[in-house]
């Protein structure tokens, strides 16, 4: 037996090391590509690595990352929240409406928007758990419902002071300056507040999903609901709460957008769903995890943000952006599911 294993040692060793390099490359593929991109962009455009530009990249991806984290939690329970972009857009319109038309202050507006997000998430969860509508279909329905609902109170117009309402009256309210600060304030004149808040939320969610027993149960419910139930988990409650978390994160994202642009823009939330879903799916490939995970989602969002920012600096036309995102997503999925898949 020992003679046999001796004879087989040399080629075995080589193939192991090749395999190990392959594994390491796959594990860190996103970061390797990111490093190459940073070097490329920096060599072409020295302003790329300035702190100001880096934080503007983070600011641009903060909302997508936040929504992506919400989608990640729903993916963990083997669901899929297609309505998260619409929830953000709805929350954007709702908070604008609350201040401009109803004349509420910043605190009340934020509370209202978050409560709305939680309720929509709850509704999603109940459609799925109580009525047994498949996740994709229930949240697709909710997506349409919200996209339409947000237009009705204003007759399809964007919300600014002086808006003429469908009943003929004029809205006299305005955005609360404190509310605007949520989106515009920069710590030390450099770090945008939304970036800090999103980083905090993402970190908390990462901790929940990776380090606590509740996180393990979220994944167990997604892996095998029967087994999780037999092991004592209230599986329906977990599935509902995943959608509530996603709804609240969506609403928070909407608040950040409203506070930054300072008006209830009907079209502001258009690409949020696809971008956040893409971030969550790219996250599968990060560290070769092969499943939805918070760190991967945030890394995926940042990756796409850096790529788009760099390409914009290099004067690549804006209309190629979706193509680039699509290419990144397909590449990441090929890495996760195809190329030298695990095992």
């Amino acid at each position, binding site marked *: 037996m020992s003679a046999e294993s001796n004879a087989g040692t040399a080629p075995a060793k080589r193939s192991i090391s090749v395999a190990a390099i392959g594994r390491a490359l796959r594990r860190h593929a996103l970061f390797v590509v990111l490093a190459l991109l940073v070097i490329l962009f920096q060599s072409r455009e020295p302003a790329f690595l300035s702190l100001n530009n880096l934080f503007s990249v983070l600011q641009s991806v903060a909302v997508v990352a936040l929504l992506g984290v919400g989608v990640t939690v729903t993916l963990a329970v083997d669901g899929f929240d297609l309505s998260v972009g619409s929830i953000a857009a709805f929350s954007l319109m709702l908070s604008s409406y609350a201040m401009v038309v109803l004349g509420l202050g910043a605190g009340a507006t934020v509370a209202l928007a978050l409560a709305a997000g939680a309720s929509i998430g709850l509704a999603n969860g109940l459609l799925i758990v109580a009525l047994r509508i498949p996740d994709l279909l229930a949240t697709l329905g909710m997506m349409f419902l919200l996209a339409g609902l947000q237009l009705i109170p204003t007759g399809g117009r964007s919300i600014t002071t002086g808006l003429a309402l469908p009943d003929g009256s004029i809205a006299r309210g305005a955005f609360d300056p404190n509310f605007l600060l949520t989106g515009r304030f920069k710590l030390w004149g450099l770090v945008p507040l939304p970036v800090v808040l999103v980083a905090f939320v993402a970190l908390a969610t990462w901790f929940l999903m990776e380090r*606590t*027993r509740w996180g*393990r149960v979220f994944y*167990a419910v997604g892996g095998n609901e029967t*087994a999780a139930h037999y*092991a004592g988990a209230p599986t329906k409650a977990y599935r509902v709460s995943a959608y509530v978390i996603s709804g609240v994160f969506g609403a928070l994202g909407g608040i950040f957008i409203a506070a930054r642009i300072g008006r209830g823009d009907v079209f502001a939330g258009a690409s949020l769903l696809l971008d956040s879903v893409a971030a969550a799916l790219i996250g599968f490939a990060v560290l070769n995890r092969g499943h939805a*995970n918070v760190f991967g989602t945030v890394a995926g969002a940042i990756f796409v943000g850096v790529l788009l920012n760099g390409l914009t600096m290099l004067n690549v036309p804006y209309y190629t952006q979706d193509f680039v995102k699509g290419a990144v997503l397909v590449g990441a999925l090929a890495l996760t599911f195809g190329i030298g898949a695990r095992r």
Partner: protein
Amino acid sequence: MPTPAALSSAASNAIAWRGVSKRFGATVALDGVDLEVRRGEAVALLGSNGAGKSTLAKIASGVLRPDAGSLTIGGRSVSLGSPRDARAAGVAVVHQRTDQLGAPGLDVAENLVLDQLCGGGLGWLARPSRIRARAAAIAAEIGLDLDLSADFNTLGPAHKQLVAIARAVGADASLLLLDEPTACLSAAEAATLFNVIDRLRAKGVGVLYISHRMADIERIADRLVVLRNGRIVGEQTRPFDFKLGIRQMIGRDVDTAAAPRPRGATMAKIEGLRLTPRGAPFDLDLAAGEIVALVGALGAGKSRLLRTLYGLEPIVAGSVNLGGKPWRPKNPAESIAKGVFLAGEDRWATSLLPAATPASDIAGTIALPHRKAWFPRGIVDGAVERKAALGAIEALRIRCRGPADSLESLSGGNQQKVVIGRWRAAPSRLLLLDEPFQGVDIGARRDLVESLRASRVEGATLVAVSDVEEALECADRVAVMRDHAIVALHDVDRGGADAIMNSLSAIEGESAAGARS
């Protein structure tokens, strides 16, 4: 070597295995098996779990290749590389699971010609009239009386099975292989199935019938073959001596549970319990440290009793007392908190997480139901989980590299050890095991039994098994179930083996009489 008689019998063979052996790693599944089924003959195959029945069937259906020996179908030596080859050679297989019998959403006619539809035998244009005509011909051939336009999904399990059989034999089969076909059928449905089998036999189709049910075997078989540890250990022609058959299936050295163990105070007291509104009420006392096995046919209510005690099914009537207090669990979480554990039937369905799930390794699998107790503050400590896993690996002799191994990398027996290890990782008052020896080889079964019988077990254990052999091996007492109630209770150590077999064959005999009337 072949005599003229043997040659002529070769021509009338539906199928013959000659010196077939198959090993899986260290386990010998088949050890030089010689078996033949003649045209028009029905042979029943009897054997406990792991005896090699399904390996024999898989070799005939092209799923597995034998390591040694040969297979002859219709007098010609064949080498089957795939289920498709087997179909082409004339072997029709009908599996036990009803969810794989046909395509829901298509109607009966389309299901009957499914193979031709998929294989292109009907041309690329699926003309309804042509499908209907072909399907009607197939149905008529075996006397299948069904509405051909009904959706497959609306059929009961028996009719689904009949459609699957009709489809399987439609293409000129010489052998029909049935694996526990009546497991999910009522007596009347089974009778319909038997009539169809009779017609097929009259047409010269050979039938190999794998079953535990003596009543079925009595009804249809010409010959009874007993398989044990991969060898044929008994063969009978009519009239059958089932007691002999069971004895051969179990082996002469019946491993009854070793030394009788001290029985503690009453741990659980079941009084007047009804599992279904029409089920009879029954009582059962479980003592601390005692293992009671539940035996009985599929559908006798073994799983239901365990699920009821675990809070997965409501208590219809009667009472359960656990450690002196009334026990009426609302859900598994409450049961786990109170030390009532259930390892469900079919581990991949009820216990294990797929490999892509985080924390689905050995350590995570064992920790899953215990994290609430182990980590009250919510933060998971990997070291605690690893330690519990190492304990289980040692106690149950789980063959693996370590606690971080994925379950999919383990053999079936070792997977099952992880499942049992999970529920031994915390002290239990009532341990409920549903078919814990399903798909487990003999060696692993010994380890599991040993672990269950280790004297440090304080709680009571209730084990549902489908084989008497398994019951005798692990239990102190055996409870026989029928129609959702316990109808007999035997001590294993006081010469119980015979009494249990008598009791079981009496019950089987009754249901056989019921099926015939």
